[in-house]
């Protein structure tokens, strides 16, 4: 092993430990934040007894969950039942490895650590555990693995509620995976790269992609909600219908793992929204954040954290505002609205980008983005107008245009 490789491995290990720790602590605190936000939205205080302002509540919950009894339903498939929480937990954590969370930090060292030998690293260290060239393709691939954990949990529990939850989860996640993947193609068109670092760099040079690709952002956000099983798309859990859906039969730490996975997924989706559409760790209107050094790295890290925190809050905000979708509404939104919309949007964006860059010859990324922004504004007004009028999703009473004639078979009522 060369000293350079060893230096790289050392840094990667440190980054892994740091990111893992931050994600786990962050997820624990998110459970508290969720309860606090929900309480505030209902004019309550939320948990405030354990620790200062309830900050130790997650620790108390954790201790409780570790000490509780692990139950196994009588006719459950023991092997799958045990492995399912891990299957949903691992992909959720895996995703945090590819998201750049701060500006590259210049690290120079040349040390000898006893019998381990010499460790060398020179030049900027990207603040991401694995700066994969496949970028968001990796995220799409791994996030769809999470459905295995949920579907297997539902299947192995030997419970009708869990099975229904697992079924719903698999159908829902497969459906929205399509829209999610398609909504990212315009990002690829505009950036020309799937790597997160490159996308962030492109947005720094131009404008945050939320402006030229607003509809992509919208579709991605909606699909992200569906992927993480958050309200208004929490049909796999749906406590009023399915008790708690796929994790009905789980207790103690296994249940906790599903919980951690859900929040880790929320963090990942929010980090994806931030990175793809809100400039990642970019601090707007300044080039100072790219100058390199410890201070810019810390500042960009803080900025990234705040942006992700806002989107996490947004997710909770939506959760405590909107009621759950009906299942057929969810499916028709996914297949009849989101997917055709994403496809049409790809065509429009292709044409627009070709016209702007090829025919008009606009080379400045800012100007091109502004033209696209104007176009997006029009499309957004059109799309939201159509969505608002309830043509695609509507109440059950509206499905039947004319009331059934007298003497018609009773089965049509519904």
């Amino acid at each position, binding site marked *: 092993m060369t000293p350079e490789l060893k230096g790289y491995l050392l840094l990667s290990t440190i980054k892994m430990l740091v990111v893992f720790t931050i994600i786990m602590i962050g997820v624990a605190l998110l459970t508290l934040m969720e309860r606090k*936000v929900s309480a*505030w*939205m*209902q*004019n*309550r*205080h939320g948990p*405030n007894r354990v620790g200062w302002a309830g900050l130790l509540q997650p620790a108390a919950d954790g201790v409780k969950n570790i000490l509780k009894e692990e139950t196994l339903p009588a006719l459950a498939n023991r092997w799958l039942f045990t492995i399912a929480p891990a299957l949903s937990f691992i992909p959720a954590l895996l995703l945090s490895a590819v998201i750049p969370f701060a500006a590259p930090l210049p690290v120079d060292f040349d040390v000898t650590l006893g019998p381990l030998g010499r460790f060398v690293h020179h030049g900027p260290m990207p603040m991401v555990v694995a700066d994969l060239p496949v970028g968001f393709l990796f995220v799409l691939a791994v996030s769809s693995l999470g459905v295995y954990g949920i579907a297997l949990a539902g299947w192995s529990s030997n419970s009708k509620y869990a099975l229904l939850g697992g079924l719903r989860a698999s159908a829902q996640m497969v459906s929205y995976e399509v829209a999610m993947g398609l909504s990212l193609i315009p990002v690829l068109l505009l950036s020309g790269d799937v790597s997160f670092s490159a996308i962030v760099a492109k947005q720094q040079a131009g404008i945050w992609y939320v402006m030229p690709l607003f509809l992509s952002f919208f579709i991605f956000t909606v699909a992200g909600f569906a992927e993480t099983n958050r309200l208004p798309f929490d049909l796999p859990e749906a406590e009023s219908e399915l008790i708690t859906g796929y994790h009905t039969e789980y207790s103690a730490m296994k249940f906790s793992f599903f919980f951690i996975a859900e929040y880790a997924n929320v963090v990942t989706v929010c980090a994806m929204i931030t990175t793809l559409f809100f400039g990642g760790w970019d601090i707007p209107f300044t080039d100072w954040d790219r100058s390199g050094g410890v201070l810019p790295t810390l500042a960009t890290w803080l900025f990234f954290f705040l942006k992700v925190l806002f989107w996490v809050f947004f997710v909770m*905000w*939506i959760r*405590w*505002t*909107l009621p759950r979708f009906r299942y057929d509404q969810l499916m028709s939104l996914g297949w009849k609205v989101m997917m055709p919309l994403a496809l049409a949007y790809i065509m429009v964006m292709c044409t627009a980008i070709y016209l702007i860059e090829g025919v008009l010859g606009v080379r400045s990324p800012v100007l091109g983005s502004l033209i696209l922004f104007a176009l997006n504004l029009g499309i957004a007004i059109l799309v*939201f107008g159509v*969505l*608002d*009028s*309830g043509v695609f*999703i*509507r*109440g*059950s*009473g*509206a499905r*039947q245009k004319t*009331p059934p004639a007298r003497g018609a078979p*009773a089965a049509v*009522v*519904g």
Partner: protein
Amino acid sequence: MAIGVKVLQRPERQVSYVRATLKGMALTFKHMLEKKVTMQYPEQKSTDQDHGMGTYSLSPRWRGTHRMLTDEQGRSKCVACGLCPQICPANCIKLVPGEDEQGNRYPLIYEIDEFRCIFCGYCQEVCPEEAIHVGAHFENSEYSRGRFVYDLERLQSQTHAVSTLWDPSDPAGE
């Protein structure tokens, strides 16, 4: 149609989804900034100090654990007339009357079993000496069941406010 199923005609034209969502989000955000309504119980407590007019006060008609009022010499006001055990629907008052040298009656034993008590307040209403009262009090935890039989000494030593049994602002109960 065998069973009359009511099919609701939902509005088709005046519906809104995006606007309604935004409206709902504005509403929930507004609620986040509003004053919290939860009482922080062990720190804040319901009391009858402000006679039902405070934010978390008990109703003036609240009937809780009993008090026996005392006279200036610290003796119980009770004359052991026997009206309260007589009227008590739950039969929770045990009264053994005694008589001193001047011929004044007083209770030798006066016990109220708070577990049997249904907190109707009849004992307070019937008492001619205004001695026994139900109180504006609700924290009664004990470590044993035996402690729930309140003897005379305990009934006298309690200091919480007593119930008025009616609302002072509405004496006729209208």
